[in-house]
C-alpha cells in the first residue's frame, strides 16, 4: 500500500511553515524538522547551480533506498515536499492539489501572516481528507 510518510511546506526563505507526519518510525523533534527543511532548501538551490543546461528549476524527485521525496516549487518560491514509499505514483498531482488547498485555506485567510507557520484548522482538515482520499483511491486500484 503506497504510503505518505510526511509532508513539509517551506517558505521562500527556507523556513519551515508546516510539517505533518503520517507514520514514520522514530520520533523527529521540531528542531530536527526545521534543520532538515532548511537543508533541503539549500540543496534545492545548489542543484540549480550544477545544472549542465539552462533553465533548471531545482530537484523534483529524490530517490533513496527506503523512501522517495517529491518536491513541488510554486512560482513564488514556496516549496511543498512529501516523503513517501519508493515508487508511489501520482505524487505530483497530490502536491499540486495541496498547493490549491494552501492558496484557498491559508493565503485567503485574512488572519494569516505571510511566511509564518500555518495554523489554519480548515487547511488541516482538508489536507487530511485529501491524503486519506489518496490512500483510499490507491487501495481501490
Amino acid at each position, binding site marked *: 500500500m503506497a504510503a505518505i510518510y510526511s509532508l513539509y511546506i517551506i517558505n521562500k526563505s527556507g523556513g519551515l511553515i508546516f510539517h505533518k507526519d503520517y507514520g514514520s*518510525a522514530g520520533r523527529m523533534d521540531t528542531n*530536527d524538522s526545521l534543520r*532538515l527543511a532548511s537543508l533541503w532548501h539549500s540543496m534545492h538551490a545548489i542543484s540549480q547551480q*550544477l545544472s549542465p543546461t539552462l533553465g533548471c528549476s531545482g530537484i523534483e524527485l529524490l530517490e533513496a533506498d527506503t*523512501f522517495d521525496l517529491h518536491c513541488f516549487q510554486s512560482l513564488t518560491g514556496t516549496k511543498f515536499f512529501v516523503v513517501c514509499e519508493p515508487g508511489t505514483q501520482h505524487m505530483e498531482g497530490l502536491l499540486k492539489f495541496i498547493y490549491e488547498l494552501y492558496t484557498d485555506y491559508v493565503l485567503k485567510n485574512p488572519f494569516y501572516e505571510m511566511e509564518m507557520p500555518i495554523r489554519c484548522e480548515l487547511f488541516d482538515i482538508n489536507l487530511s481528507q485529501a491524503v486519506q482520499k489518496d490512500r483510499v483511491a490507491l487501495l481501490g486500484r
Partner: protein
Amino acid sequence: MMYVFNRNGVCLLYREWNRSLRTLNAQQDHKLMFGLLFSLKSLTAKMDPTSVEKGNLGVPQLTGQGCSFHSFRTNTYRLSFMESPSGIKIILVTHPRTGDLRESLKYIYNLYVEYVVKNPLYSPGMPIRSELFNMTLDQYVRGLG
C-alpha cells in the same frame, strides 16, 4: 557528465560529453558537487522514515551506514549516484528522462577496478590518468545513450 570522487572529496575523474552551461570554474564545480552529495546523504540518513535510530544531522556517516539516495531528478538533468564500500563515489549526470542507472554505475565501478585499481602505476588518491579506462568508459557511455 561523469564525476568520480574518493572518500576525501578529491575528484579523481571528471568527464564531460555534452555540457552547454558552465556556471563555475572546474575546481569550484567539483567542490560544490561533492558538498551537495555529502549533505544530501546526511539528509536522507536523517529523514529516513523507516529507521528508528537516527544519528544527528551533520555527523559524518560511515560508508554504507544509514539510508542513502541513489538518484535525483530535476527538470533539466538526472543525477545518479553510487558509493562503493571503500568510499569511491561515482556520479553520472544525464538527460532527465533516463531510467534507473544503478546497474550502469555498478558496471562503471567494475571498469574502474579493472583498469585503474589493478594498474600497478596508479596510487590511490591521485587523479585518474588512464587512457584505456577513458576509452572504455567513452565506448560504454556512448552505447548507453
